[in-house]
């Protein structure tokens, strides 16, 4: 472990010059949303994907969806989630798909698996594939089957220096903030259903096609007494006049996902 720390420091030096993960320079499959993210046994889940590229603000490429066998550990989707170990889902015109947990359980012979109780969840692995500009993008999403449904979070606002993120001055550094939609927040599952228990933490992942971020994500966390702790980061706008595309993806503790696309114009 001690060497890992030292080696990590050395390796960090090697990363200079490498494009950071938050910088969108080409087609990316950025997020997958399951609605709802946690579903009761036999329920339906609608799956959507966020695909972006480096030029247009958002793309809508052909999507393909499949569910993986619960009996196989998925290390490589193209090896472990194919053939009889995969169940293809029909893709709608808007690129979404519907996962029927009852059909899935029957297909993989998981009908005898006991229904989860309390806060327990049975993970169902979904693979999303998109083709864009000859590039194949693959993402994995975990849908949870549990005793009670959960909700996706919402993004109430994204701010630069406290104001709505709409405009930027080239080269200027801003304090970047984000907040969840309070009405959409679920309380943490603790098994005792106490009404006063804190909400789930939400992490906001930020992607841009220009500028620099001090950290690619910021957290909104809740103490045990319910106190909200909001983290902010710094965003340095690019030295250009062209608009900046910014995508914010919110993930909560149950895999709930939401995203928001903003176009920042220069002052």
């Amino acid at each position, binding site marked *: 472990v*001690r060497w890992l720390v030292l*080696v990590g420091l050395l390796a960090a030096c090697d990363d200079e010059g490498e494009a950071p*993960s938050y910088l969108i320079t080409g087609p990316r499959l950025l997020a997958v949303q399951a609605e709802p993210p946690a579903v009761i046994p036999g329920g339906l889940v609608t799956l959507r994907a966020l695909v972006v590229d480096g030029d247009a603000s958002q793309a809508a490429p052909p999507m393909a969806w499949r569910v993986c066998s619960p009996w196989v550990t998925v290390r490589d989707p193209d090896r472990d989630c194919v053939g009889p170990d995969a169940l293809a889902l029909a893709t709608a015109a808007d690129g979404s798909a519907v996962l029927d947990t009852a059909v899935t359980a029957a297909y993989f012979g998981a009908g005898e698996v006991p229904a989860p109780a309390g806060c327990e969840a049975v993970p169902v692995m979904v693979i999303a594939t998109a083709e864009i500009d000859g590039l194949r993008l693959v993402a994995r999403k975990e849908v949870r089957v549990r005793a009670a449904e959960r909700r996706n979070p919402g993004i109430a606002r994204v701010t630069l220096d406290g104001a709505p993120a709409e405009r930027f001055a080239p080269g200027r550094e801003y304090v970047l903030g984000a907040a969840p939609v309070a009405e959409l927040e679920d309380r943490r599952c603790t098994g005792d259903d106490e009404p006063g228990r804190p909400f789930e933490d939400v992490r906001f992942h930020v992607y841009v096609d220009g500028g620099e971020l001090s950290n690619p994500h910021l957290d909104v966390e809740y103490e045990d007494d319910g106190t909200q702790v909001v983290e902010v980061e710094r965003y340095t706008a690019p030295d250009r006049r062209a608009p900046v595309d910014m995508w914010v*993806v919110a993930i909560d503790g149950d895999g709930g996902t939401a995203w928001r696309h903003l176009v920042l114009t220069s002052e």
Partner: protein
Amino acid sequence: MIRWIATIAIVVGAPAPALAQRAERSLEAVVVDAASGQPVAGALVVAGGVEATSGGDGAVVLAGVPAGAVDVLVVADGYEELLTSGRAGRPLRLALRKVADGNVAGVEVIEISGDAPLADEPPTYDVPVEQVRTLPGSGSDALKALQSLPGVARVPFGLGGLVLRGSSPRDSSVFLDGIEVPILYHFGGLASFFPTAMLDSMELMPGSFGARFGRAIGGIVELRSRAGQADRWRGAAEMSLVDASARAEGPLLGGAISVGVRRSYVDAVLAAAAPDLTLAPRYLDAQLRYDLGSERRGRWTLLAFASDDLLRFVDEPEAAGDDEDTFRYVSRFVRAGVRWQRDRDGLALSIMPTVGYDESTIRFDEDGITRENLPIALRADVKRSWSGGYLAGGVDGQLVRSSFDLGGEVGPGPGVMGDDVEMRRLGATWAEDGGVWAEGFVRLWNGGLGIKPGLRVDHFGLSDQVVADPRLTISHELSSRVTLTESVGLYHQPPASADLDPAWGNQDLRASRSVQTSAGLQVAIPDFGEASTTLYYQALGDLPVDAVTGATAAADGGSVQSGGVGAISRELTDEQFGSYAYRENVGRGRSYGLEMLVRRRVGDWQGWVAYTYARAKRRGDPRLDPRWYPYVLDQPHVLTALVSARITHHWQIGARVRLATGNPFTPAAGSYYDADDQAYEPVDGPILSERLPDFVQLDVRVDRNWRRSWGTVRLYLDLQNATNRLNAEGVSYNYDYSRKDYTRGLPIFPSIGVEYVP
């Protein structure tokens, strides 16, 4: 008196049957001052009925000595007599101690020194301590010089850890005067725990060691400390870019004491260079040895040594309310023991109880682990000369209390994520290991054939297991200069206490074992030195390997199958911190290879070329994957060429070149996106199928001596990686694994130091 002793030695050491072969046998030696390493001229050397006097360079040749091992007696004015053993065709280094005023012995023979007879051992490797001081690339550190010897794999970043004949670092043991040393090097491999100036000798046995040592399935390094000189008080000091040390020795209460202390000051330098980050890495060590009495009448030796490493990062809070992130790494140990030994009338006795304390801590804020060990050990040996050979036996055992304090957001087991699970575990175990061993050495055919059978029986407390390890070494003297030695033996090693953790370890874990075989040829080259080559094969069984694995890709690093820096780091720290994995004794390994060494030991230039062809393979849990893969430190080719030359009376220069095959790693063949973690996951390519580029490094060194009446001052510049070559030590990828880059090794690293020797 001198002549009287010499006459007795001539009579005793002249067996009649060997006379016919005398004309073709000679014994070469160099007589040096043990303290300064300088040659001693005019010393009378007597062996096997032949005597000769050393020349100005300390060299002496005794032509016509009998076959087999012979007693060697060295007598010189101003020095204590030296009685040791030698063999024709094997160059000897005879280190003499100056006569002490009112010295501890006060009798004829005080200390046995010089090279031990090798006929009863498979080929081993040593580096004369005084030579280490001018060895390029080792920074005057004797133990770092071990890594230039055959059979030793290169460890990335110059980190510590001995990988001997493809065995894991945890499978080899290091002993100092019979006391097992838990950690050989200070953090980062900057320096070893014991200063070179206080060492008398060191010997590397990469495999096939005798029954005297147990509880290891790899190799052994045996270090011997140097007794202080009792004639008068003297002090010495050394200062380099990294650390400073001081030592003193002299008479005390009728005996001789030597003490030393060393401290690094990297912390102060780096703190000044990076004021925003409080960075405090530092190490210190201390040594004490006190000798009273003589070996003939019974000598008491008190030995204590300690090592303390601390690495600490404190990220200062930028504003009120920000958390203060701290990282703390502590590695410290202390050992103390008292040895009584006597060597008289062919009977040598030694008994040594020791106690110690270890602490290993690594914490981020309060999360992390602290492990403490409290070992109490006893070693007792007896050796009796018998019919040209000897009988030996002994017992050694230890009682260790191991405790740990583990806390933080960690998973309950390998492959299971913590998911914000805060946990804390405390525990302690007692483990007792004991062994009894016996071995004998007989010479047949006028000493041309030596046979050494041995047997060791151990009880391992943690696994409640009794194991018996028979070992056999046979030596043939093919000619006066050529010896062939074969060895075969069984070796066992108890499980690590961390692997038996009641929460996620396996309490049914048992000992691992190895069968080691080797055949070595040693050739003495007159007026030059020696050459040796060894073939070896080792089969390892019952290795503890992870029996539960998570879904983490091997290409992501950190697992055994990942290879690269992550897997090697795990190998290096496994014994100290434990892996806290569920393991079963289902692993197997095999290693084989060829070691070659050509060494020049005489003249103004000395050095060696060491080449090792070594293959080491492992098989993990066959239920998960029955295939064999290269060991993470499998390096088929390792070549070290080293030369050090005295160009004038004051100047000495040296260079070392090292070449080693790159370590294996598992490449990433692609990636996919984990939408829940918002991060890419690698897709494995073939397991451990690629290798890092070959390692090549040049080290150079320049020494300048000033000899004055009040002592000697030595200034040195040791330039490691003199060409500033950016060797690859690991693999890193960009965020989506589409581009690969190498983690580079250390750049050019100068080590400048000045040493004062009285």
